[in-house]
């Protein structure tokens, strides 16, 4: 399979059709059909345990590493059904980057190497200079360059929590993904760092489609163009952020937004 199979001009970055996910006998994602438009911020909002993270992990086939998990249905990424037999999941994961809840740079690598490791192991750069430029580009995109340009070869563990998370974003961006999955990226950060990441998310949607999992309606309201409300494994309601936050159609959505459920 080739990277070129993915069509960068499809209207929808991700499209799921009747997607069901089970952990053993537990039905955790129920019949989800979603369309995520390209170059937008699409928030999946819902309380803990609603299946948001599981749904997100089906978009880059990370669920392959959960032996209990079973996926049924279709997930199309840029037009390609990624659960099709001929699909190579490692290529899917290069197109669909991911940022996790706990900032997780590789602790034994320098700031530079954390960003460079992906391109290096995929043989993306022909020269050291090309790699240097890619690392710089990714760190700039993640808004971290100015803070680290003089200490690129220090261990990544020396960074603050917010910086670590932006480094994780840079690491993902270095593979030039088209889609970036973010699993509660600010859940472990202070308010100032959170604001920086949120600004970054809005900035990044020019280049990538962002799927953001969050339990916070406020965060969804601040950054998202579209919002899906998920509850007990089901998508209760999807709409533009404006629709969801000003005129939710489903009473459950309204209850979540006002803090009655969750």
């Amino acid at each position, binding site marked *: 399979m080739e990277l070129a199979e993915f069509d960068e001009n499809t209207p929808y970055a991700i499209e799921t059709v009747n997607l069901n996910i089970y952990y053993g006998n537990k039905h955790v994602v129920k019949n989800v059909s979603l369309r995520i438009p390209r170059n937008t911020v699409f928030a999946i909002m819902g309380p803990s345990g609603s299946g948001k993270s599981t749904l997100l992990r089906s978009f*880059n086939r*990370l669920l392959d*590493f959960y032996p209990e998990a079973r996926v049924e249905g279709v997930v199309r990424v840029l037009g390609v059904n990624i659960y099709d037999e001929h699909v190579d999941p*490692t*290529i*899917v*994961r*290069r197109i669909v*980057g*991911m940022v*996790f809840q*706990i900032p*997780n740079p*590789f*602790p*034994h*690598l320098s700031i530079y190497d954390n960003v460079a*490791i*992906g391109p290096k*192991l*995929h043989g993306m750069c022909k020269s050291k200079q090309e790699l240097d430029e890619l690392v710089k580009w990714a760190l700039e995109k993640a808004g971290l360059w100015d803070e680290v340009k003089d200490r690129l070869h220090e261990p990544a563990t020396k960074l603050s929590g917010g910086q670590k998370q932006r480094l*994780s974003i840079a*690491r*993902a961006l270095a*593979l030039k993904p088209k889609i970036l999955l973010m699993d509660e990226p600010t859940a472990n950060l202070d308010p100032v760092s959170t604001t920086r990441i949120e600004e970054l998310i809005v900035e990044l949607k020019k280049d990538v489609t962002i799927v953001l999992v969050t339990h916070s309606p406020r965060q969804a309201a601040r950054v998202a163009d579209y919002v899906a409300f998920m509850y007990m494994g089901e998508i209760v309601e999807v709409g533009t952020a404006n629709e969801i936050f000003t005129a939710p159609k489903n009473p459950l959505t309204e209850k979540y937004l006002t803090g009655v459920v969750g």
Partner: protein
Amino acid sequence: MDVYTRRKIKDVVGRLLIALIGLFALTPLFHILISITYNGVRVIAATGVIEFLTGIPNPANPSNPGGIGPAILGSLVLAAMATLIAIPIALNTAIFVSEFRGSPASRFTILLSLLLVEFPTILVGLFVYAVVVEPMRRFSLLAGSIALALVMLPYVVAQASEALRQIPRDLREAAYSLGLSRLKTVYRLMLGMARRGILVGILIGLAKALGETAPLLFTVYGAFNTYPQSILDPGAAIPLLIYVYAQQPGEGYQALAWGAAFILLVMVTSIVLVAKKLVPRVHL
């Protein structure tokens, strides 16, 4: 006498008793350390450090018995080669054990590895004699290092697999999310993350192997008087020299054995100290 004074006396007496028992238990250890250091340093000082470390034994002259150069070189070569042989096998075993954790094959491997720790090293020596020395029809440093590699192996496997096991799941997921295959994730990233534990395992194994005599008895033979020309030559090792020379009646032999014991003590202790420094809570 009120109850508090009585408790205080009991407490002091108890502490004293425990301290005394502790001292009693430590006496042999101190005795070993002090007598080896005292006798060893005396011999080495009499011969001269350089001469003792590089010279050839001359046990006929007890006041200046020469050096143990071939044995020291032999030990260093054996240690280096044993490490080179053990590392690839041990790391792949550790990866297998930690990647397929919980599977019957993995559990069986752990069991074998535990058995190997407790395995009588004389049998390791005999085994290598049967499969290497006998077919090649010669004692050699190569055979000795294979035997020592077998001694090291379980220590490296235990430390490395534990270090790999402790890598948090989210770091592994981060690697997968960069499109790295499981193979690349393990070999290109996780081994690096576990490098401290791996190093500790190697050092502990090395300290163990350096002090072993039994695996060498049937494998390297004990050429104490000549420097080996290749790894296929018979060689010597410090513990082997101690074992042989300490049994000889001549004073010169005894002196060389004392000096060798001190050198061995310094080597093993410094390796253990480095390992200890790397991981503050390492279990030895």
